[in-house]
């Protein structure tokens, strides 16, 4: 299901020529749209993000330089607008991913979705899970009788952890969402 949504939104191979001419901003925009529309977390676009960050850095330096050496203020403001637009895309992309991680951290950390996160995101997910676990333990779980204190299982005697059920529920949910998203993108 995951690969379905990725392939479905990708670029057809016949458009190879246009792919070469595609700028990173275009790719970033596509990644942002996909990430926003997909219910589950997609593969982190490590290379693209790194390239975008470099370009933004470069452009920031250029704009600063232009502002100092008295280039036409109109030109400077246009460069600044372009920079702002790219930064918006990048920030929004990263934030949507963080939102998803916060929302589904237990599910993500227990499935192969984990490999789709970047190093920093994995660190973030790990920390959030730890904090959540600590909080639940302090506020509720530690007061429960022994055997009911796991955050993953309903009770120590349950065979499979209940996260499993939740995962399968989520998976179902994802399946459906992808299905519908596929529809929306047919229209695209």
């Amino acid at each position, binding site marked *: 299901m995951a690969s379905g949504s990725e392939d479905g939104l990708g670029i057809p191979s016949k458009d190879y020529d246009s792919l070469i001419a595609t700028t990173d*901003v275009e790719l970033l925009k596509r990644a942002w749209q996909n990430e926003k529309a997909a219910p589950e977390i997609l593969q982190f676009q490590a290379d693209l993000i790194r390239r975008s960050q470099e370009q933004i850095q470069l452009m920031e330096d250029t704009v600063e330089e232009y502002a100092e050496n008295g280039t036409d203020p109109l*030109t400077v403001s*246009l460069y600044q607008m372009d920079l702002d637009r790219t930064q918006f895309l990048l920030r929004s992309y990263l934030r*949507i991913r963080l939102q998803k991680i916060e929302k589904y951290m237990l599910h993500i950390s227990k499935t192969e979705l984990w490999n789709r996160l970047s190093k920093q995101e994995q660190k973030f997910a790990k920390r959030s899970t730890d904090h959540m676990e600590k909080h639940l333990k302090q506020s509720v779980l530690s007061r429960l009788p022994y055997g009911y204190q796991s955050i993953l299982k309903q009770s120590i005697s349950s065979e499979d952890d209940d996260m499993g059920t939740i995962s399968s529920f989520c998976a179902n949910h994802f399946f459906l969402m992808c299905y519908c998203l596929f*529809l929306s993108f047919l229209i695209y």
Partner: protein
Amino acid sequence: MAGQSDPHLSIFSAEEVEFIAEDEMMEIVPNMKMDPLNLICGDFGPFRPQIATEVPLWLAVALKKRGKCTIRPPQWMSVEKLTQILEAERESPREFHPLPFHYVEISRLLFDHARDDIPDVYMVRSLIEDIRDVRFHKVETGLETISARTHAVKLKNLSAMEVNIVRPFIVRALQAFYKHDSPQMIPQPDTIGNRPPQVADRGPRVRAKSHMPLGTLADTL
């Protein structure tokens, strides 16, 4: 915060859809001289007075706001073309006429910032509004046909704004049908014993509340 539109209303906020549309190319005629711009999103220019050049819509609007250019409205934004489209839309009650994917946003931006560059602006504007209404009416009647046996909804030639408005509704409607349909949701005899039945059907009921009524869908346009 960037990109934090309420995911329950629609995936992209109206501003975000507009943001996407602002990358569409537009022809402008500058009235000043400026060197080429080497932007992150591409290289544009050089800009010479009276010599037309292609730039993204956001750049066109930025220059227009400062009085540095005139925007050439796209070909489809003429009274003649739009009248044809409106007629075609009215003639085929089930199909959508192919229009630029971002026609709503592009026309809106041009009406807001470049009124003086569009010939017969009032006529063009009312035609586009009519087209939008006719099309949205079709979407609404199309949605009424969604039922338990609907597995896919095909809406060809729908535009960005239209997709964005109906997407959350269609997704939730199909989801609701799927849920009620799936064997998991029908309480099995053995699970009834250890779990109160209202827990099982709480999900859909909460969801049903968040459905946006169709009437308000049209208003958000």
